């Protein structure tokens, strides 16, 4: 797998909140076309890693690159322009805006093909199509997650960062979210996903990482992680 250049590579990332260091040199890589899942116990630093990659937290050591270009110090606004889409764990929609407005805001900086892309995203989530003028705040958790993902897709990101897309959804709804992630991936978007529901997430992933206490613990093909006794015992609750 090393002969393919990664889309996204984060190497030896050190980051945290102010003086509090959370990540102590974490590395992850996403190859073109891959879904990569990060699992780990609560407080491991999974969200922190995504935020650091996305420029929401300062990276004090280490490097992030996109298609081999260093993007470590780019601002969030510029990372979006460079082709990274981010779906946060919480507050991931504009709840006082309509579904249509949410999607259009996702494409705010797009000059060309906005309407085409809008139609494309709506066709990906047919449930949303009939309710475009409804306030997002009134939607169910699953529908809101669709809007959140749809918003992040509006700029045709090269890679989508997803922070616990299935959190607090019913099993049926989370199944649907994973199905959508797989579908989006099938259409050519790589994904780096943090998940609590490790079983389901790994089931649709190519590779996985286990983080604990701000450090890498395991990594490998998703099937290996699912099959590993250590990982199962420690992190999959099996």
């Amino acid at each position: 797998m090393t002969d393919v250049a990664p889309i996204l590579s984060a190497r030896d990332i050190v980051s945290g909140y102010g003086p509090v260091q959370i990540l102590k040199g974490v590395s992850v890589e996403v190859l073109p076309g891959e879904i990569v899942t990060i699992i780990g116990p609560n407080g491991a630093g999974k969200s922190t890693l995504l935020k650091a990659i996305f420029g929401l937290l300062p990276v004090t050591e280490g490097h992030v690159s996109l298609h081999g270009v260093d993007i470590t110090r780019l601002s969030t606004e510029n990372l979006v322009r460079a082709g990274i889409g981010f779906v946060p764990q919480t507050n991931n929609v504009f709840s006082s805006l309509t579904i249509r407005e949410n999607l259009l805001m996702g494409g705010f900086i797009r000059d060309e093909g906005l309407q085409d892309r809008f139609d494309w995203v709506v066709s990906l989530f047919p449930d949303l199509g009939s309710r475009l003028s409804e306030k997002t705040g009134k939607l169910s958790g699953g529908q809101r997650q669709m809007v959140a993902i749809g918003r992040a897709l509006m700029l045709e990101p090269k890679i989508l960062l997803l922070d616990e897309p299935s959190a607090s959804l019913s099993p049926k709804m989370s199944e649907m979210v994973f199905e959508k992630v797989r579908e989006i991936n099938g259409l050519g978007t790589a994904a780096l996903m943090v998940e609590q529901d490790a079983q389901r997430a790994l089931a649709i992933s190519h590779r996985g990482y286990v983080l604990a206490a701000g450090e890498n613990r395991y990594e490998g093909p998703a099937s290996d992680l699912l099959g590993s006794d250590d990982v199962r015992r420690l992190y999959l609750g099996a």
Partner: protein
Amino acid sequence: MHAAASPVERFRQLRGAGIAWPRYTTEVVIALSALIAVWAAIQYSQSFMTGLIVGSLYALSAVGLTLIYSIARTPHFAHGDTMMMAAYFTFFALTGVVIGSKGDVVSPIRIDRLPGATDQIWRFSFGYGFLLACVVSAILSIPVLLLINRFIYRPLLGRGSGSAIIAVASLGVAIALRGLILLIWGATPRKYSTGIRDTVQVWKLPRVVADQYFILVVALVLTILVSWLLFRTKLGTSMRAMADNPDLARASGIVAADVTRWTWIIAGVLITAAGTLLALQSQLSADLGFVLLLPIFAAAIFGGVGSPQGAFLGGLIIGVVSEVTVATGLFSPGYKIAVAMVALILVILFRPSGLMGPK
């Protein structure tokens, strides 16, 4: 996200299942208020009209205030003083007057020297020169507001300062502006024109000063324009997105500083209009803006912070309620504001996020 439960709600929760409000409580309250309003409009038509005019000044100011607060995240206690600054800019553009060491000094370049600039339009007390001066005032006021934002509010916000700190900073701005106004134009109140003010009677409405119709119409038109901008344009949508969820706006590539800048530009137009019309209605004086701060904040909260239509409605209601209750003779004029505050408290008690605020 839940707004904090209102005291009524909490009271209900405390009582367990407790009192359930009858089904149409809201509708009944609205209908009753409307009836009272109609009765007041007939019985005390003169005061009602005055209330509407004073209220439309509150309204226009509150619309700007609510934008600055919800989008630019600045509790702007200098709002009244920036309004007065703009009012004086209009005055200066029109008359060229500033204070000198021995009385007033008049600039040779000034709008009222243009031919026919002060010839009255319709029955208004002003000519086209005044309107032109308003435009010049906006052109002067907006950069000042942008500079204040750039060098005072933005650094504080960027450092993660809380509302209280920014509020205090804005109070500092307020005091500084008032000082500057006193320095440049002195403490003696001034007027845009010294002529007599025509009164007019339109249809069967009470007779009022012609200028007051101008005030009412401008307030209404600007509020409609702002609502249109917020709800029908891409810029407006991004402003609402910023107000709703600034982090997600950033994650969508929206540059906060740009949206904030546009917010201040739009607020600058509103501030210029509100300040100048306020001074047209009464007079130019350095303290006027600060005096008005309380009803302006009340109007914004009344209507629901973040909602321009709500702020507009809130302004009108505060204006009308204070004028009419005094006209009934039950309260002396000194209680005008107190009555408005009681109305505000009642609304907040039942709807913590204001009339049109987010649920």
